[in-house]
């Protein structure tokens, strides 16, 4: 399964390197959102700093929706879904490969977003270990849930509008947990950052297990 996951992840990352969707569409989107929040909150850096954690993860979730749509649109090109069904790849391996690919792309987005927040919102980074762990487990959860709901939405007629409706409510616990943990790490929360990180880890583990278990059915039915 790990071998299959690496084949899929390698292919997806190569496709991303060629099409540059993340580079040419998602990163400008991230920059625009950061600036728009700045305009909306009247460049009040104190308020922006207080809201940074929530704004960061809301932006990550919106970026994730775009990337999940892209990740599954490429599998619906010209008979590719049938070709994947005919391959020797295990459905669980394909799912994990999509998760790894989305994870890598989202981490790049988060690094760029983090730099934008530091520069534009005048945020001082602290609690590095908690920030890093929360980023990893939250991103893993987003990638796992996105890879589970992506093929569901990809098989629907109104897939572009339905994916956010399906995915964003599912990701609400990640928004809550990651935002609270980031607030703690940045010294503006009331503690409990590691408990939130553990909750995010459980979320990621549940969706990874669920995806491995049901992705074969999803591949057949969508």
């Amino acid at each position, binding site marked *: 399964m790990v071998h299959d996951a690496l*084949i899929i992840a390698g*292919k997806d990352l*190569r*496709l991303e390197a*060629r*099409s540059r969707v993340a580079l040419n569409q998602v990163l400008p989107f991230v920059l625009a959102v950061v600036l728009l929040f700045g305009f909306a909150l009247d460049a009040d850096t104190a308020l922006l700093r207080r809201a940074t954690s929530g704004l960061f993860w809301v932006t990550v979730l919106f970026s994730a929706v775009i990337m999940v749509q892209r990740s599954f649109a*490429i599998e619906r*090109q*010209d*008979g*590719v879904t*049938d*070709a*994947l*069904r*005919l*391959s*020797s*790849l295990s459905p669980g391996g394909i799912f994990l490969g999509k998760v790894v690919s989305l994870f890598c792309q989202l981490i790049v987005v988060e690094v760029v977003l983090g730099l934008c927040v530091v520069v534009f919102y005048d945020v001082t980074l602290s609690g590095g270990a908690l920030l890093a762990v929360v980023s990893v487990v939250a991103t893993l959860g987003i990638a796992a849930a996105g890879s589970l709901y992506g093929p569901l939405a990809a098989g629907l007629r109104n897939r572009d509008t339905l994916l956010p409706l399906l995915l964003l409510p599912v990701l609400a616990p990640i928004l809550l947990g990651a935002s609270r943990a980031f607030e703690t790490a940045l010294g503006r929360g009331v503690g409990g950052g590691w408990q939130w990180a553990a909750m995010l880890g459980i979320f990621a583990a549940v969706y990874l297990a669920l995806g491995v278990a049901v992705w*074969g059915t999803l591949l057949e039915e969508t």
Partner: protein
Amino acid sequence: MEPVVHLHSTVALLGRFPALAGVDLDVDPGEIVLLRGPNGAGKTTVLRLCAGLVAPTRGEAVVLGVDLTVDRRSIRPLVGMMGHATGLYDDLTVAENVRFWARAGGADPADAGAAMDRVELAARVRSLPVERLSAGQRRRASLAAMLVRRPRLWLLDEPHAGLDAAARDLVDSLVTEASSVGATVLFASHELDRAEAVATRTVTISGGMVVGDSAAHLSAPVLEATHGA
């Protein structure tokens, strides 16, 4: 000799529509079987059923020893299918696509070059993204992606469509060559003159059933009786 394909009273529903209404067909190793019939007759469904992509609803369906009524996934890595769609990623080059499908099919990606040689894809074309290829080049690339997996059963849906004369000759020679080394070929085609020249047997399908079968060519009265060909 165990048939490569054994369908007996096989029914397949696509939604509520009976795409196959009781097909009886046995195909022996090395045969090149042309499936012919009018549009909507069920030719593509037979091919997809043999590939494990369509579930048999009733009847018997055994392909390469795998009972498709019990397990459809096990058959998939053993067959090669080229349909109307290419099954290629537009943003990857031809070579990258063929190597990827080799890995995904459990084959050696080092064989990709040989597969592309067999379909006579020029070196310049191999390094182009698929989205920049002509329709004929895409079909050749798709064929290479199938060949690299060394399938035991070839399932080709309109393999001559969109190809120039040289490429059609190439497809025919590849089919004949595959048969000579023991692979079995089922293909659907509307280009009957060319298809019947390469086929060792012709099976006529109409209304989701086999209505004609011959070792080489169907007789004219059978054709007229089935769909006025």
